[in-house]
């Protein structure tokens, strides 16, 4: 789906190294994967692009892509928050064990694939992923607590993520054997 690009003419040449059209299609691929609401994709990408353009006028962006992904992620959270506001409105209630909408709707199949991929991993790698993703620990803290070198921690994260990616694309888990 071609993403709508407002003001593209205005900024042509302002950030020559950034091809906004490419940035937009990359972001919409990401947003489509993040949300089950097709109607959000266009809005989020358009808003992200317009903020990126605004920012790039004010200052030289350190990284167009890094900022783009961050803005898109935070807009997605905003949309989910708007959806869950009704839940939060009921006061005094022990709050929010409620899952985000994308979690409810994300297919069970996806969950099963990820679980299978995680089960195939060495327990240590799984532990590193849990610490990084769920507990938000830094590389250095994980290395310290597990008695690993920082390099080993990175390797677990990158190879673990690559495995998850592979699982989601459905090309199996034969990776360990292939090495």
């Amino acid at each position, binding site marked *: 789906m071609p993403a709508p690009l407002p003001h593209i003419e205005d900024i042509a040449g302002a950030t020559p190294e*950034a091809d906004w059209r490419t940035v937009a299609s*990359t972001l919409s*691929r*990401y947003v489509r*994967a*993040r949300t089950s609401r097709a109607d959000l994709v266009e809005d989020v990408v358009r808003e992200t692009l317009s*903020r990126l353009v605004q920012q790039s006028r004010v200052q030289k962006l*350190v*990284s167009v*892509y*890094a*900022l783009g*992904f*961050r803005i898109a*992620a*935070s807009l997605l*959270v905003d949309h989910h*928050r708007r959806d*869950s506001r009704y839940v*939060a409105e009921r*006061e005094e209630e022990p*709050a*929010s*064990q409620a899952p*985000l909408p*994308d*979690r409810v709707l*994300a297919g069970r199949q996806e*969950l099963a694939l*990820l679980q299978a991929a995680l*089960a195939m991993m060495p*327990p*240590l*790698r799984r*532990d590193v992923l*849990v610490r*990084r*993703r*769920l*507990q*938000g620990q*830094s*590389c*250095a803290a994980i*290395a310290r607590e597990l*008695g*690993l070198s*920082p*390099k*080993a*921690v*990175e*390797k677990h994260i*990158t190879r*673990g*993520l*690559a495995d*998850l*990616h*592979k699982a989601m694309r459905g090309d199996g888990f034969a990776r360990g054997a292939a090495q």
Partner: protein
Amino acid sequence: MKRDTEIAEEAAGWIDRLNQPAFDAAAGPEFDAWMAASPRHRETFADLQAVWESETLAHALRQPEALVVMPSLRSHVRFPRLRYVVPGLAAACAALAAVLILPSVTTTAYRTGVGGGRTVVLADGSRVDLSGDSELRVQILPWARAAELVRGEAFFDVRHENARTFEVASGTTQVRVLGTASNVDRQSPTRTAVVVYRGAVDVAVAGEHDLVLRKGDAAHVVDGHIAAQPRTAETAPAWKSGWFEASNVPLGVLIDKVQRYSTRPIVVRDRALLTLPISGRFRISDTARALQAVQVAYGVTISWGRRVIAIRPTDASRRR
């Protein structure tokens, strides 16, 4: 032509690098160049980033079998050196280690001593009031504003910006501030209290369980669970005038607060006492008054030594 696996690992390396608290500005153009180099790079990164941030992954990781690692496994799964090196990433992690160990240029730390509070104005114009015996680390970057409450309690008056949110981490609790006045109290590594006095914040635990708090709302995060608390009509946290309002809070939390103002260590002689639930309004800036109130209301005995203030259960049979 690169193999898919190779691209996936490079993309994963970038995801990890971008998620570091200290993203090196010099890496920005490098990342953009990597993304610009090939549509396969962009697609893989977009897919992987979506997987990494998805609720589904968090859910899968939360399964019990994924949570345990036996210490004895460590030596078996250690990788041979230099076998799967992702270029650039190793350097990033090493740099990060340096940032965390050595004083960093990009992170500013603010500390207060026992009894002393402090007000700081951050580079973005936001104001923070730190309570006694507290520590806050702040990082203002072109694309993000982040603070970590390492210890203690802080009141944030954050300047609203559309593109840059202001995030406060306290243990596993993340508070996303949207231009507002709010108080974050790190009561223990797994216990954080948040109160909003103006505007709205979004509270999350390890990226999960969102809850939006608006003006007057309060919540506790205890061991990874968020619970709404009674609303407040106050316009500033009680600690700023030396008070603490407890509603079913473990005694240990109150003691920590009193300790922020007391130069003599306060020692609780009985572990069970630390979890004793207490309620009430305590003048924490006045050590004697606060502890006497506890003594009267909860039947504990306090001995005022020259070096140490000791608290123990009054019931002699439990003392042993």
